[in-house]
């Protein structure tokens, strides 16, 4: 799920649950999540050097 897809779902869900005031907080969480997903520590399954041995 992309950040934008997640955000749209979360806002719609919050409104359906009667919590429209969650929207500005979801804005902040979206920004944090975007930064988190772009961080350089995240694994990339297509790259050999991210594979862990099992």
């Amino acid at each position, binding site marked *: 799920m992309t950040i934008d897809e997640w955000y749209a779902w979360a806002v719609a*869900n*919050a409104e359906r649950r009667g919590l429209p*005031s*969650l929207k500005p*907080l*979801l804005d902040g969480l979206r920004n944090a*999540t975007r*930064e*988190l997903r772009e961080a350089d520590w*995240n694994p990339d399954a297509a790259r050999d050097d991210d594979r862990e041995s099992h």
Partner: protein
Amino acid sequence: MSRIDPGSLTIVAAARRLRSGDFTARELTEACLDRIDRDNPRLNAFITITAELARAQADKADRELKTGHDRGPLHGIPISIKDIIDIADFPTTAASRVRDGHVAMEDARLVLNLRHAGAVFVGKTNLHEFAMGTTNEDSAYGPARNPLDETRSPGGSSGGSAASVVAGMCLATVGTDTGGSIRIPSAACGLVGLKPAFGDLSVDGVVPLGTSLDCVGPLAKTVEDALLMYDAMAGRGQIARGDRVETPVAPRLAALRGYFVESLQQEVRAAFEAAIARLTPHASDGAIAPVEIAHARLSPSIYLPTVLAEGAEYHARTLEQMPDAYVTAVRLRFELGRYVLAEDYLRAHRGRATLRAEINAALTTHDALLLPTMPLVAPPLGATTVPMDNGREEPVRAAMLRLTQPFNLTGHPAITIPLPTAGLPVGLQIVARDTKTAAAIAGWCESHCR
């Protein structure tokens, strides 16, 4: 009016005077209870006052001292306990109506240890509801006020705890720290606050906020007092000399730069740089090295999904059953946690490992890292943003957490000591590999910054 001024007494001084017969534990306790009677209606530091328990404990302490039974440095010392920690037979409200009707069946482990050390419990202190905030404003029992300026927050979430010590209602207190909740109110109120290394002290009997972040620790007037509290909380009432970490004569110190000092209030920057200048000649090689932590600026983005998801997990059932029992702002934060995806929580987990490795690397060549505790002084009650010296307005909550939360993420011990200022208090934060080293170097800084 009592002849004893608990506001000016350290634990060490009080312990000496108790043993010299200058006053009794009962007299000291009554002096604290008088302060509570006089000032708590204004400061709102306490949710529950345990006066009868305190009197019984103080009388017992006096009887024991008379017969030569000395439990150690906390024997007969009045302290307060944050009302998120269980004291048997009293409610643990967590400053929330969600907890109405609760009565603790037994002491939290740390409370039991303090009881065995002879401490006297004068009451349970106010906090930000369920410790989910930094100002103490969102409490079902109303905001606590900063005794140094009652128009300002005492910080939080352990705001009532800090206020109770500064106002002389007790000599020390116990707080909890998930993102800074011991260090923030300590810095805002001019106290020493110790967040031990994660896992050092038992959180058994403490209402959780973020189970991978939560720590308990003391707030006190001096590093020595904080260390006495820490040892007693751990069940080490009488410390063998060998347990103490010797302070290096000239410790190897680093000042954290970059992210950690980019945006401060002017008085915080001035006090911090003055402290670095004062400490530098005494440090190893007469230098304090500037150090940057590569991923530090991602700390808020790592912290947010971590604390939100962990908080939501604990509160999910009551959010469904009694949503209106929460203070609205706190309820919304816990609800927000229900939208954190598992994959993002795990990304944050990886980020914590990255940060931890970077702090550990900095601590291989330095005994301790120094930085401001908060970028701002105690904010006015009701403020939503605060001005910083780079001309920007920052949200209060984000600013208050910015410099403390990295060390909850990494688990490192961190201690704040008050710096000399002409106005509101400013804290210096000291981070080390282990709790005793952090405290020992904090004591060294305290002695050189006076």
